């Protein structure tokens, strides 16, 4: 090849072009709503007359007015799904985005105030770095049409999303494990907050994380 200057020059030009394409051509990310629309479009056939979050929010309002805890319980079985799907979607989307967090900090005194003014109630934030679950930051997710604060923790190379959905009328409940779309989820209710932890780490690790989160004091 070196013997043929014309060929060598051609090779050089092709290499320059390859470098140009590889390094300079912008890699455009899919528009933000695309993933959600795809997830909605491949959803399995099930009643989808939008009873989802709007109804849920309405029921919370109604429940608040009636001050009756039984409303939620009666409606709960069919309403957990859309929220759960929203949690899974938000987690997957965050993994695909260039940055899985809106505010990057391992300091809970930075993360918690960031939520003030963005959501009705800033979530409880604890630092679990010593237990191998360092806080990475926080972000806002929208489940249905409600902005929800999400804390992001890391365990080895894996991220854990912890959504804190306000649900003032839900009674406390112990963690329940679900596996959705290849992800493990634990949900529980504590002090009027409906928590969802989701990650691709194993169930034992996720369980440990949830236990630590629940037992650690923010003021240590």
């Amino acid at each position: 090849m070196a013997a043929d200057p014309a060929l060598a020059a051609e090779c050089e030009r092709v290499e320059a072009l390859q470098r140009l394409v590889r390094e300079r051509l912008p890699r455009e990310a899919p528009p933000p709503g695309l993933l959600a629309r795809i997830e909605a479009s491949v959803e399995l056939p099930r009643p989808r007359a939008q009873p989802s979050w709007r109804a849920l929010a309405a029921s919370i309002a109604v429940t608040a007015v009636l001050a009756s805890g039984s409303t939620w319980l009666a409606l709960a079985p069919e309403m957990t799904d859309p929220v759960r799907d929203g949690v899974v979607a938000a987690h997957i989307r965050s993994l695909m985005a260039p940055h899985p967090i809106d505010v990057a900090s391992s300091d809970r005194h930075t993360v918690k105030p960031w939520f003030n003014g963005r959501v009705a109630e800033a979530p409880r934030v604890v630092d679990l770095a010593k237990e191998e679950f360092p806080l990475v930051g926080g972000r806002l997710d929208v489940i249905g049409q409600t902005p929800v604060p999400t804390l992001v923790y890391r365990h080895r190379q894996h991220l854990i999303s912890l959504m804190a959905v306000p649900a003032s009328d839900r009674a406390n409940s112990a963690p329940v494990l679900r596996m959705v779309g290849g992800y493990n989820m634990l949900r529980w209710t504590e002090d009027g907050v409906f928590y969802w932890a989701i990650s691709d780490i194993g169930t034992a690790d996720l369980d440990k994380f949830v236990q630590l989160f629940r037992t650690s004091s923010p003021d240590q």
Partner: protein
Amino acid sequence: MVRGDDDNARFANVVLPHLKDAYALARWITGNRADAEDVVQDACLRAFRAIRSFANGSARAWVLTIVRNTAYTWIGKNRPAALVAVEDIEAVEIARAIPGDPNAETPETALIAQTDVARLEAAISGLPIPFRETLILRDVQGLDYREIAEVTGVPIGTVMSRLARGRSRLIATIGRKES
């Protein structure tokens, strides 16, 4: 329901991680964002319905194949002229066996390296679709020849010649004096 959950899990594991590549390919084939979104959404639906037929091998190549076929169907329906014209160009070029224009000035390597992004994008957009998709799959998405052959449904030899012709056309376009 259990079966459905399985499908959802497979879809999330096999298809969704390649959404970025799927969108990029659809955008380069259709030439614009709105159409690319429609194509990707449609392709994902097809992939979901066929998710049980995906056995092993490269999930990315499988997903991109579906996206590419969906994009072609879309173009056939919405812009049939583009496909016909492209096939004509390729047929003429194969018949003459001339890659690009032999009389075109060949630019210096340095000139290529300094090409600005807008000009590069325009030059790639100007390539006939078979050259464009091959170039994108190789130089942007980094598939190997065998995978590209699988995605585009042509022999490896054709992949290599399309890539070579696509690149030399690009170089010629970039080297042409701006008018």
